[in-house]
């Protein structure tokens, strides 16, 4: 019942926004088409990119390419960031050794890596994956680290008292107890990956949603800009939803992930 109500409220909000969009652009003309595209312009752009293509490909091609880049960058970031964060949280020595380098590298904006990434890896997808990796890596490390450090002391003491072997402690206590924070980190990482993708694709991309946005900007084509933006939004929503489902499956014991 609560789920249905939530869905209904979500659709009602969406419908209100679309109505407001129509009202401001098409019916009253308060917002001119040059400033923000009308729904008809958006629809025309959507049909164009879906059927005839734009910026060297159809919407599906651009979206799929961007999605693959984000997934690869995200997976590389997670598989490197989560273990590093867990290790830093688990071992004070590791934290002391890695933290100074991490603290220096962490504040560097992901986009500042673009020139070096292009220099090192060229204009292809590898450079974009590197930039996405960096953006998604930092939240993964920080949240995994915090997840370990917020494990209640009695749990650790009980494991120690019972003589739990190290590997068992990691698999059965450390990772499950830190999992809610790890998933929070994954959500932030995914969001960072999408945010960075568009900026990374603005430079030297042959296909992708970033290229669509860049080309639409050069063509002064607001309708297509909105299509690109919405495509990123929808894909971001979709990937977050999938991650949310995975979180609920992984953390069935956690009340916070339940409805």
């Amino acid at each position: 019942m609560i789920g249905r109500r939530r869905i209904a409220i979500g659709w009602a909000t969406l419908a209100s926004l679309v109505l407001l969009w129509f009202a401001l652009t098409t019916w009253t003309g308060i917002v001119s088409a040059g400033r923000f595209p009308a729904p008809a312009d958006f629809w025309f752009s959507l049909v164009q990119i879906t059927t005839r293509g734009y910026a060297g490909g159809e919407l599906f091609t651009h979206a799929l390419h961007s999605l693959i880049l984000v997934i690869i960058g995200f997976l590389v970031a997670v598989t490197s960031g989560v273990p590093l964060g867990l290790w830093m949280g688990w071992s004070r020595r590791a934290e002391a050794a890695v933290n100074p380098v991490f603290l220096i590298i962490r504040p560097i904006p992901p986009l500042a890596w673009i020139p070096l990434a292009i220099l090192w890896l060229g204009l292809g997808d590898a450079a974009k994956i590197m930039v996405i990796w960096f953006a998604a890596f930092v939240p993964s490390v920080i949240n995994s680290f915090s997840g370990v450090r917020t494990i209640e002391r009695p749990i650790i003491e009980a494991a120690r008292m019972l003589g739990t072997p190290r590997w068992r402690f990691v698999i059965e206590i450390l990772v499950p107890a830190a999992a809610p924070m790890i998933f929070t980190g994954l959500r932030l990482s995914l969001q960072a990956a999408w945010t960075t993708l568009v900026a990374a694709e603005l430079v030297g991309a042959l296909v992708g949603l970033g290229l669509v946005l860049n080309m639409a900007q050069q063509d002064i084509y607001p309708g297509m800009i909105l299509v690109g933006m919405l495509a990123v939004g929808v894909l971001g929503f979709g990937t977050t939803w999938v991650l949310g489902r995975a979180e609920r499956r992984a953390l069935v014991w956690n009340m916070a992930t339940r409805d």
Partner: protein
Amino acid sequence: MIDQPLKLRETIAYGLTGLGLFIGIWTLLSVSGLVPYQFLPAPLDVIARFFALLTTPFAGATLP
């Protein structure tokens, strides 16, 4: 198990070791020629450039 907190001296020692390892690998990659100089300049060159930029303008301004 999660370790006990380190003493300040130990924290500094491990921190310096980590930083030293990072800079060491960077230097090794650059000086050995494994990565060409124009792609990865050595740390000392970066530091020298940093100090040079404090007084010599680049892209229309000095670093400060």
